């Protein structure tokens, strides 16, 4: 069902009466599990009352934001009307916005830029840290904000990896960072099964032995502690066409830092989860995702078998 607001409410699209009428139509659609499109084409509503009565007050009808998102599509809404809608729904506790993670500094659709110096004719001044709008309002997290989050919030974490150093000198140096990013991405991406920090720890053991600058052969492009490929960083960015949302702005230099590297690596594991699920045609275990990340999930070669055994050995040691 589609409601063209301009035609349906041509004499009055600002009042509570008009809003109530629209709310009844939305309610009927949701209750009968029918999809409804609210088309605001060529119209500026500019009324808190209309949006409050039509949409925000659905909360009083025991409609949950998830029900609304499942059955209602809002089309061609004016950007200022969207702000009013966001404000009134937030006020009623009928939050249609995806909530930003509490560790994030900036609102959804913006990313953090840390304080930086700016040269002027009279010397150098500092530009204070600030949030900057992302293109297309998608959610993007920058390396600056990843560092801020780790330095501010990575304590009292809910799930730590095993304290086994797997016989590497720095085997336990990154436990908090691993746990922090697993918690952040679990809470942000809400997977069917949460990723356990031991998965990431085992992966790091196989990739770099916990060395942020592992010795590699000439021409080797992989970066840092999780040995991310430059292409992977591009896939995670808004220009990568791999993700739909919740991107990372991280360049190769920034990815050298273990804090940034592990965050990007865990984000990539979550994307790998979706790809492995498509490959297996069922929900994979995180161990299977880890093997797919290593490229050995279905490979029957001797080399692949050796890598699998290696991973399994670390996983067992961490249990």
């Amino acid at each position, binding site marked *: 069902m589609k409601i063209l607001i301009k035609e349906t409410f041509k004499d*009055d*699209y*600002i009042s*509570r009466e008009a809003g109530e009428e629209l709310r009844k139509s939305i309610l009927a659609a949701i209750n009968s599990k029918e999809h409804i499109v609210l088309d605001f084409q060529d119209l*500026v509503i500019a009324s*808190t009352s209309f949006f409050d*009565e039509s949409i925000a007050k659905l909360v009083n009808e025991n409609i949950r934001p998830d029900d609304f998102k499942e059955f209602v599509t809002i089309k061609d809404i*004016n950007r200022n009307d969207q702000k009013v809608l966001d404000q009134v729904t937030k006020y009623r506790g009928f939050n249609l916005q995806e909530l930003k993670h509490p560790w994030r500094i900036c609102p959804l659709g913006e990313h953090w830029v840390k304080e930086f110096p700016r040269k002027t004719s009279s010397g150098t001044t500092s530009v204070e840290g600030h949030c900057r709008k992302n293109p297309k309002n998608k959610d993007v997290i920058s390396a600056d904000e990843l560092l801020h989050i780790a330095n501010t919030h990575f304590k009292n974490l809910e799930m730590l990896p095993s304290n086994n150093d797997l016989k590497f000198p720095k085997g336990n140096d990154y436990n908090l960072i691993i746990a922090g990013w697993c918690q952040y991405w679990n809470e942000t991406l809400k997977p069917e099964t949460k990723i356990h920090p031991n998965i990431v720890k085992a992966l790091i053991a196989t990739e770099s032995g916990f060395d942020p600058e592992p010795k590699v052969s000439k021409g080797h492009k992989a970066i840092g502690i999780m040995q991310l490929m430059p292409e992977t960083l591009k896939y995670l960015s808004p220009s990568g066409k791999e993700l739909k949302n919740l991107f990372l702005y991280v360049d190769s230099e920034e990815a050298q830092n273990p804090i940034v590297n592990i965050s990007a690596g865990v984000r990539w594991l979550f994307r790998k989860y979706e790809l492995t699920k498509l490959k297996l045609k069922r929900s994979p275990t995180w161990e299977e995702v880890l093997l797919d990340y290593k490229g050995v999930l279905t490979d029957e070669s001797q080399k692949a078998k050796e890598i699998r055994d290696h991973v399994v050995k670390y996983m067992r040691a961490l249990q």
Partner: protein
Amino acid sequence: MHLTLPQKIGSERLDTVIESLSVMREVSELNLNWERVEKIEPAGRAIISILIDQAIEKNCLLIHSNLNSNIKKDHPLLKNLFKKDGLPKPDQHFYKDNNSFHICCEGGINLLYKEILTRDYINILDEDLLFSIQLVFNELIQNAVDHSTSERYYVYFGLVDDEVHFGVLDMGVTLPSKMEQKFNAKTDIDFLEMSLKEGITTRRLRSGGLGLYHTLEMIKEMGGKFVFISRDGQIRRYFSQRKISRLKLKSRLHGTWVMFTFKIKGHTK
């Protein structure tokens, strides 16, 4: 009874016009002296419409003296003051020039103001300012229709120097009268203050409206001024200075007037 109108009829210096409206409930004849009047601002047109309508409704004969031709052309009804055909029809109040308009609305929500704003001012004012103006208008119009139960309300808009002036005026049930049915307060100023707080509403049907509070929150960064008058109370809020003045009116206003002034600097095209 004789009253001399001020030099400028607008959202400032309202004592004489409010006194005029108050005395015409008591006397059968009121002489308005226009001698000092030099300018009618957009708000002034709505006020003149109210003076004329109220005089007829209260059976008070208005006698105008020293009304010059320059001022007469500033309001459609001033041209034909001496015709006694009962209450002028809403469209007889209608005024529009290059910088302003004034509409008398009757019998519910009237979106003519939206049509004029989006057609005639879209190339002059930026999208955000036009949106903020509509947001305020929509809230005020609904308040006039729902709360005051007044048959008529008066909508004005105009560009004056570097400001945009707009507002909605009605002569229905006053806000303090409505508020005292539900809340307690010592003075009418307190009632007006209370009505601007979050979560306060006098609405019976579709209760729990967000009220003017949310609208003011959304537009306060526009700067400018807000004048809110009803019964014996008057509140003037200056957004950019974070200043509020609260005054008791010298004469009672049997209605509710809400008038806004926004700076247009930085909001023109």
